């Protein structure tokens, strides 16, 4: 990768190398491929135990969804006035988590942030799995899920009615599906060279076939690399606006409504910041676990983690600013309904949810101002979890508590989740982690080719600027 050699030698002194330990190309290939190529019996027992637990939870999800589809939404706690509760909270939560993947891959790629290379693959995978988890909710939260396909612009013989394109839910359908498609493409494109590496190393028939098919005839020729780089750049360019658009569109579900607490113009940037915030936190949780489970300390270094924590601090503060701004606008608007909603949010019956959200999202990340804390693995692990708890609460607070008390006090209500609500949400974690564990075991979870690009930079750093031109 030609760009890698342009690393400024001066920077290297202040910044430690991104890949540590054995950094020979073969070492990297060996280390990453060995996970995929390991014999069943060589895979650590802790992996199988983990997979057993997560897949059991995934089965729980399937049972819950079957029960829901057969009985009705009534098995959840949703009611009137709270038409959307954990379902859409979970949807937005998972979509938010799905943001970090593309952000790390695409935006950091465009900004030439080298440190992304060890984490981008798993972050992208996480995006895909999170979007899959997210998609479950809009599908199954409909009263008649067998009719949910009416949300897609496909001709239907039942009733020849076209979709209502004024509805933000239709925008959602397009935004989320586009995002999913592009994310899959982006992830897969990045995988091609690595899969080819695995194919070349394959010793079993199955691996030869599977990796052979997936590598799309990759030979690693210069022409391949040139096209690959161009395609990757284009996809990164396409993905970048999507990072901003998906969550903006999701936020339109609320922003375009008339409900106080939903009807807010600040939502698009606020939701995007929140999504990046939660997405980075989720990547952090996963990486810390993977780093420990699969001994990847040399590839996922403290520097990677610290950079991510900086982003968490920034986005957390943006979110905090948004909270403050909402309160200000509620007061400034002079609308009694707005004022009440925000007063109610902080001091009403859901005060505990609101203060959990303020604490987890705004107050706790402030600890990252201290370098000692943002480089401490335990601190970052705990904060990554509290951040996601806080972000889940943020969606719950916005969605459910705004609905509990809107205009007419006669219709005010309260939401109590049922065991089905809880098991369904828990089940999505089962699905998510099962997919992630399968991915970690059967596909290279770190981008081999890209890490090689940044590996052993000090050995390449003597290369003059002209070297780049030679390659071109």
């Amino acid at each position, binding site marked *: 990768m030609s760009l890698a050699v342009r690393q400024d030698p001066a920077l290297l002194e202040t910044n430690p190398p991104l890949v540590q330990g054995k950094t020979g190309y073969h070492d990297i290939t060996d280390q990453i491929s060995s996970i995929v190529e390991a014999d069943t019996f060589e895979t650590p027992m802790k992996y199988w135990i983990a997979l057993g637990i997560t897949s059991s939870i995934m089965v729980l999800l399937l049972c819950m969804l079957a029960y829901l589809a057969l*009985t*009705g*939404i*009534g*098995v959840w*706690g*949703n*009611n*009137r*006035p*709270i*038409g*959307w509760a954990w379902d859409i909270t979970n949807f937005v939560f998972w979509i938010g988590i799905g943001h970090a993947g593309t952000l790390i891959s695409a935006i950091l790629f465009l900004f030439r942030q080298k440190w992304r290379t060890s984490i981008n693959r798993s972050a992208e995978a996480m995006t895909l799995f999170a979007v899959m988890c997210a998609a479950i909710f*809009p599908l199954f*939260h*409909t*009263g*008649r899920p067998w*009719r*949910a396909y*009416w*949300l897609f612009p496909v001709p239907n013989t*039942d*009733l020849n*009615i*076209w*979709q*209502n394109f*004024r*509805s*933000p*839910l*239709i925008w959602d*359908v397009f935004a989320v599906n586009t995002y999913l498609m592009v994310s899959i493409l982006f992830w897969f494109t990045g995988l091609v060279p690595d899969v080819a590496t695995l194919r070349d190393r394959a010793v079993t028939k199955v691996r030869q076939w599977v990796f052979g098919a997936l590598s799309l005839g990759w030979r690693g020729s210069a022409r391949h690399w040139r096209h690959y780089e161009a395609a990757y750049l284009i996809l990164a360019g396409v993905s970048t606006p999507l990072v901003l658009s998906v969550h903006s569109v999701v936020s339109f*579900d609320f922003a*375009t*409504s*008339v*409900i106080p607490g939903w009807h807010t113009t600040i939502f698009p940037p606020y939701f995007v910041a929140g999504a990046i915030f939660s997405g980075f936190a989720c990547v952090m949780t996963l990486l810390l676990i993977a780093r420990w489970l699969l001994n990847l300390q040399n590839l996922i270094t403290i520097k990677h983690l610290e950079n991510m924590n900086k982003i968490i601090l920034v986005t957390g503060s943006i979110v905090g600013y948004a909270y403050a701004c909402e309160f200000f606008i509620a007061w400034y608007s002079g609308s*009694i*309904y707005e004022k*009440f909603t925000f007063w109610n949010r902080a001091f*009403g*019956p859901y005060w505990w949810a609101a203060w959990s959200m303020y604490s987890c999202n705004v107050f706790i990340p402030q600890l990252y101002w201290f370098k000692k804390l943002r480089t401490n693995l335990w601190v970052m692990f705990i904060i990554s979890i509290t951040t996601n708890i806080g972000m889940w609460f943020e969606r719950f607070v916005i969605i459910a508590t705004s*609905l509990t*008390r*809107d*205009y*007419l*006090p*006669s*219709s*005010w*209500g*309260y939401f*109590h989740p049922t065991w089905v609500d809880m098991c369904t949400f828990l089940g999505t974690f089962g699905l998510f982690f099962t997919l992630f564990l399968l991915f970690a075991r059967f596909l290279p979870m770190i981008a081999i080719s890209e890490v090689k690009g940044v590996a052993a930079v000090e050995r390449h750093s003597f290369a003059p600027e002209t070297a780049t031109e030679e390659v071109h």
Partner: protein
Amino acid sequence: MSLVSIKPKVPSGPKYWRSLDHLANTSEFREWVGREFSSEAPLMMDGNSRRTVLKMMAASFGLAGLTACRRPVEHIFPNSKGVVDYVPGQKYNYATVTSLAGQVAGLVVETYDGRPTKIEGNPLHPNSLGAATALAQGSLLNLYDPDRSWKVLQGGADSSWEKFEAFAKSMNLGDGSGLRFLSESVVSPSLMALRTATLKKFPKAKWVEYESFQRTAGRVGATMAFGQPVTPQTHFDKAKVILGLDSDFLGLDWQTPLPTKQFSSRRHIASEEDLDNINRLYAVESQFSMTGANADHRIRMRGSEVKQFAIDLAVALGSIPGMNVLNNGSDRRAKFLASAVKDLKAAGKDALVITSPRQPPIVHALALLMNETLGSLGNTIEIVKAAEEDRVESGPEALKALSGEMSSGQVSTLVMLGGNPVYTAPADTQFGTNLAKVATSIHLGYDPNETAAMSKWHLPEAHYLESWGDAVSGGIASIQQPMIEPIFGGRTASEIVALISGSKDVKAHDIVKNYWLATWAGPGEKSGTSHQQQWQKSLNDGIVADSKPVEGLKLTADAKKIAAAVAAEPKPVVNQSGGGIEIAFVPSSQVWDGRFANNGWMQECPDPMTKLVWGNAALVSGATAAKIKAGDGQMITISRGGAKIQAAVLIQPGHADDCITIALGYGRTHCGRVGKDVGFDAGPLRTTDAMWYASGVEVTPTGERFVHATTQERGLAEHLNERPLYREVNVSDYKSNPKVIEEMSEVPKLHSVYPEISYAEGNQWGMAIDLGACTGCNACVVACQAENNTPVVGKDQVIRGREMHWIRMDRYYVGSEDEPRAVEQPLPCMQCENAPCENVCPVAATTHSPEGLNDMVYNRCVGTRYCANNCPFKVRHFNFLNFHKNDPEIHSMVHNPDVTVRMRGVMEKCTYCVQRIQETKIQAKVEGRRPIKDGEIKTACQQTCPADAIVFGNINDPESKVAKLKKQERNYAMLAELDIRPRTTYLARLRNPNPELEA
């Protein structure tokens, strides 16, 4: 394509042969092939042949038809069971009549193919004037109650009508010395005649009338005042100042829509003159009733204190000669009393003092005396001769006497005609215990209830919609005609009496018809054709053709006698917490005395004040809750004498202190699937001397918790900040500035992002709801449920917040927790022109009609619930589960065939009764595309509204009633600042407080 054409050009492998003949290619083989695989198909493809075939077919069909035309020339009649002029699937309305607690209401019943589906008030009946109460609306579902009695039971074992008939004939009743009849209040002239005849045949027999809520006190009080059997008749429409002494005339005290109709007639404001004629209501009461909610001034006191208040009021008005000592009590009471007296005096003959059947006769006598003093007797209240119905032994004392006779073995045969005396009888009568001592106890009952379980014979009773009968009220008689054959083979009370007394007519139809024909013909005369026509007209109209209202009597009250009675009363303690806690009993607004307990519509119809469904509660004020150390949902034990009950507390703001109110009719032990063990039975605390309130009960919290199901608050008592949703203003303020209502909210100039749609053409439906007229009686809620097949969801689902009422009654309190006022606001769909629900639906399942309706397309709905979230009024209801899944099969009979029964997973909401709109539109189209007249379409809620508070119509027609109302300055749209442009608007309530008390 011909197979011959695909002959292979090149050799294609070995040659296959089918048989030796084939191999030899003999002529036989070719012939066989030709035979076997001959094809006629090309023939058909040949132009001429195909045409020939078709021609032949056409001719055959034509000729075949000819042979069928061999009808006889003579005129024949089809042998079918169809009714003449009857169109299957078409709805027919029949007039009938019902009664509850001795009060009569004329009804019109909509039937489809012989099954009643909707009850409406009979516009011709003077007690209904087109409206029906919530309970009358709900009584329809009782007809289709799957748990009704459906067989004759003898000692709990299956029997049959034949066996009972044989038994009845074998009974040797002699002179009737051991024979007793126990019925509910009888209002049927034919049954009264039958009763007279029966009692003549069995001279020593007795007939007692008892039911849980009887109006005997009013009659006894009036008789006390005037010295002869008379009964008062009120005209609320004539009253300008009304003072109610514990009276809930807008709620539980009357079971006809009449008082509401009359009261609200003075609250319809269309002109300056109406503003001057607006009435003023003072309420003195213990429970916060609907009458209290509609009062301009309300003072709360325990039920037992009302008597002293009445005495003081009478003294202050100068009604009682020789008495001038006032028990002033608190400042508030004294001030209230003084202002009310001044106001009543000023109103003079337009004043009205009224009390409740739950108050003792002395208070009734005092009220009549006061009216006489004021000069209103004969104007706002009239004295009429007590009808015959009132002349048998009735009331709890009569029941106690009967029970005593049963205990001592004097009763050998007890015939109970309807009702559930074992459950409703006061505890001290020990009716249930004594019933076991009666050799032959016969119970005619609607359901296998507590009484049925203890009787030797239980006979299924026919529902009033299955029965021939009649009813009279204030001189106006009506014939009750059945719309359907008794579904479960029930019989009427008159049939049972006829059977036992061995009278000539044994079928209810004959009993009723012959009674009326004989009455019309006069004694000894035979009825003629004109009487048959009269019969038909009476059935048609719902009131007996020549019946006239009874005339008021000119009588003078015996003030001295009343004064003496007052003097004889024990000196009460005024406004002190002495005497411990008092308990008050009220009939339930939902299940009445328990007879509607198995009725899902009524169980789920929120109580007007507490919004409680599926049960009752021990209602207390906040202060009393603190005193008894039990808050919302905490169980308490209430003991009185030796009796004890348990109930859960619910704090009712504005309730009198040191007093618990509990509704009767709950905690049924022998009841169907819906009502069994719902709520708490207060019956064990009730005695003949304390039918409505009793002092000195002991209350102890048990420490257990109970979850009430309410449709509002759901356990959250949060104050309402100042939202201009419900708007009300004092008449004086409105007079000085009619814009005051509009100014309550600021509506800036608004712009929609979507292009403006013109609604200037054609019919544009709209609704105006007059909050001033609405009393919050719930009739619209039940009417809507019946009309629109709205499901009943059950207690658990209500707790979850999933009740489905398309129109709901919002109740808000105003003022302090101890002395609040309350207001009621009916809330159907607002049918916004700029509906927020519409643009968020991803599948266009809710769209706007050119006539301005916000339509809901059930079969397009996928159930995202986005529309419900975005509805600022939260009037959209989602089928979270298949709420019709557990409906008994018979419930499908109550469904309106014009309205889809919604499945799970779809949204639903008020449609302005679009089926009624369409029906009328089609009718108008059939009649030559004529325009639809104003008032021709009535929504179900509007139709039944006893207050005429709901007006629906075409807002494009400037002459329509609704358009005129919307032009009033009282008219406002809720949340107009959201630019949603609701089609349903409200007319602000005008309050008419006494300036003296308001300060």
